[in-house]
């Protein structure tokens, strides 16, 4: 009996026939879903002969006949016979025949003569959608093709007036200070803009600009510009390899994700790629998207942050991290299919502003900028990165390119309250410069968590506390990463995937706009991440999200206590930095993380900042 609803759906008549008593659970579930949407359903008993089902169906004159039966070689002939009987009885003049059950898939349904076939992974909703006139996806689920705007709806207003006022004061001081200074990193970014605008149109000017650029480079990068000698462990991408990538991208937009992963369509789960080889990256991006990743993050080699200047042309790198060049990015860009977000990180080294330029020129959706982490835990000189970081934020604002502000210095041992103070200052500067920053707290078993005991009992409270405190301070998007679960994963892929998945579920459950996850190889250091390891954690994330649903994860009251302590700490740090009146000096002096915390002001680019003429 239909429980009719005025929901604008044309009610359909559906006969459901279990062909054996064990396999009618799926049909009963479909019946409930169909009735809820106002369709007319007759569920036949499971002990009827094929002929009796045909006769009963004939009496109903249905629009759909759905049967369920676990498939085997012997049973297949019975199903074929059923199809024949329906056809000969004239039922197919009107009714569509649908088969479901273990081992069923579209090609078998087709061979048997059904109009559609659904396997055990098919949710009841897919059968309902088919009844309502939507063509079934073939063995796979759908893929959401609209690109998410991670910053939409956020006002960037400080909810915590006291902290907001301090952050704004410090950020203004930083912007003002930086506006009087420049660096080779800033100059190269502007040279790159000019070079790319002249590359094809002004063949005379381009080489001159390139010479100017080369003069501002250092180390192996400089050597390449001057002599053409490749940087260690790199070689040019061959035409054959570029062909591999292009042929992979030809069908990239046809990727549909398995139904079991469809839950990721509604969540912004990012993965990092950066095997060193653009071809391998292309495959890893493709398979990550195929298993439901909604965004991918370009991971570059660590030496890219320490040398002045970025290479040109397409390069393959034998070690971790894929070389940042416009040509590499453009090769990879082909696989960033509709609906997928692409982040090119620019946060931590001597090429920060230029990386934002490349991100823009290659069509990236997001970048990553942070002055504090790059200065205290990633080896860049604070003064240099402050100048470059402010310029990068200006460029990102100009290009309308949102960026996250990460707090990975927590991994070194910097307490969350100091890291957050730094992140909030940089984010406040970003907003003042017209940009759209995203806060990226670390979800990890950080040294602080272990030493203070925040993670003694569980990994929920400390992370939830971070979310609570940040969202109580400012109305800004929060994107935990990158990736979540640092120092909780082991080399066991089951344990690793579970930890990653639970951290992802926790992040999204506690209000995160997006989350970046690791592969199940996160804790394995013996070689590159493999494709199956990427699939592992995406599968696990989908399973965890399915498990929790709207059920939620419940922190203990400790989360509120930790949140309050973090807020107090942030306030104290900000007061100190504001009182110092010189953000860069505070970086050097350890206000945002000192040697005792494991934070050391970097030396790369030291002494390269000059006052603007």
């Amino acid at each position, binding site marked *: 009996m239909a429980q009719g609803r005025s929901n604008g759906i044309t009610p359909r008549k559906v006969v459901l026939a279990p062909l054996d008593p064990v396999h009618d659970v799926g049909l009963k579930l479909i019946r409930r879903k169909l009735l809820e949407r106002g369709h007319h359903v007759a569920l036949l008993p499971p002990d009827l002969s094929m002929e009796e089902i045909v006769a009963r169906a004939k009496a109903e004159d249905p629009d759909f006949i759905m049967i369920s039966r676990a498939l085997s070689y012997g049973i297949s002939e019975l199903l074929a016979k059923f199809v024949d009987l329906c056809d000969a009885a004239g039922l197919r003049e009107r009714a569509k025949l649908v088969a479901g059950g273990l081992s069923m898939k579209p090609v078998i349904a087709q061979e048997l003569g059904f109009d559609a076939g659904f396997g055990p992974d098919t949710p009841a909703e897919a059968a309902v959608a088919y009844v309502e006139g939507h063509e079934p996806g073939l063995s796979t689920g759908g893929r959401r093709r609209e690109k998410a705007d991670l910053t939409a709806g956020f006002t960037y207003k400080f909810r915590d007036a006291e902290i907001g006022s301090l952050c704004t004061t410090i950020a203004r001081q930083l912007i003002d200070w930086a506006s009087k200074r420049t660096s080779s990193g800033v100059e190269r970014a502007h040279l790159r803009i000019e070079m790319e605008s002249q590359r094809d149109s002004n063949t005379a000017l381009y080489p001159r600009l390139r010479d100017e650029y080369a003069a501002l480079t250092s180390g192996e990068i400089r050597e390449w510009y001057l002599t053409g000698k490749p940087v260690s462990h790199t*070689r040019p991408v061959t035409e054959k*390899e570029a062909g*591999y990538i292009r042929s992979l991208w030809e069908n990239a937009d046809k990727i549909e994700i398995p139904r079991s992963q469809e839950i990721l369509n509604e969540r912004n789960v990012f993965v990092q790629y950066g*095997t*060193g*080889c653009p*071809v*391998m990256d292309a*495959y890893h991006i493709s*398979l990550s998207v195929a298993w439901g990743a909604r965004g991918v993050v370009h991971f570059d080699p660590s030496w890219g942050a320490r040398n002045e200047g970025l290479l040109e042309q397409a390069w*393959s*790198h*034998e070690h971790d991290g894929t070389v940042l060049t416009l040509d590499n990015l453009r090769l990879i860009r082909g696989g960033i299919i509709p609906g997928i977000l692409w982040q090119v990180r620019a946060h931590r080294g001597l090429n920060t502003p230029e990386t934002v330029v490349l991100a823009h020129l290659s069509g990236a959706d997001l970048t990553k900028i942070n002055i504090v982490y790059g200065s205290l835990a990633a080896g860049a000189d604070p003064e240099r990165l402050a100048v470059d970081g402010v310029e990068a934020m200006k460029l990102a604002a100009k290009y309308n390119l949102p960026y996250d502000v990460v707090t990975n210095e927590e991994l070194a041992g910097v307490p969350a309250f100091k890291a957050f103070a730094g992140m909030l200052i940089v984010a406040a500067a970003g907003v003042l410069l017209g940009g759209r920053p995203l806060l990226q707290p670390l979800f990890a078993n950080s040294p602080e968590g272990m030493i203070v005991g925040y993670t003694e009992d569980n990994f929920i409270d400390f992370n939830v506390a971070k979310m609570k405190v940040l969202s109580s301070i400012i109305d800004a998007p929060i994107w935990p990463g990158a990736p979540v679960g640092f120092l909780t994963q*082991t*080399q*066991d*892929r089951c344990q690793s995937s579970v930890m990653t998945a639970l951290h992802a579920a926790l992040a999204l459950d506690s209000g995160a706009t997006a989350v970046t996850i690791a592969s199940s*190889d996160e804790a*394995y250091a*013996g*070689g*590159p991440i*493999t*494709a*199956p390891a990427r699939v592992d954690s995406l599968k696990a994330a989908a399973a965890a999200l399915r498990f929790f649903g709207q059920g939620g994860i419940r922190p203990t009251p400790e989360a509120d206590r930790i949140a309050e302590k973090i807020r107090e700490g942030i306030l104290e740090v900000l007061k100190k930095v504001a009182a110092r009146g010189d953000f860069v000096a505070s970086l050097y002096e350890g206000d945002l993380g000192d040697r005792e915390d494991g934070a050391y002001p970097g030396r790369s680019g030291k002494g390269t900042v000059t006052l603007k003429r």
Partner: protein
Amino acid sequence: MSVRHRILDGCDLETFIVCKDVEEGKTLGLRLMAELGFEDADVVFCEMGGPGVRIRLRGYVYRPSADYQWYDLEV
């Protein structure tokens, strides 16, 4: 040409090996990978429990930047 060349990057083999301790388990695991023809093999995970080790072994067929042959040859 072996089907192995169609493997995108690495091939993991997970099993339980009966042995007396972790070191023996790892050694046997790597011997197994060598027997199977994986030259670039490693132990990703190995944990002793009861009669032996739960082990995950990995043979890299292609590391990044290698000369991939996914399409070139009939397998």
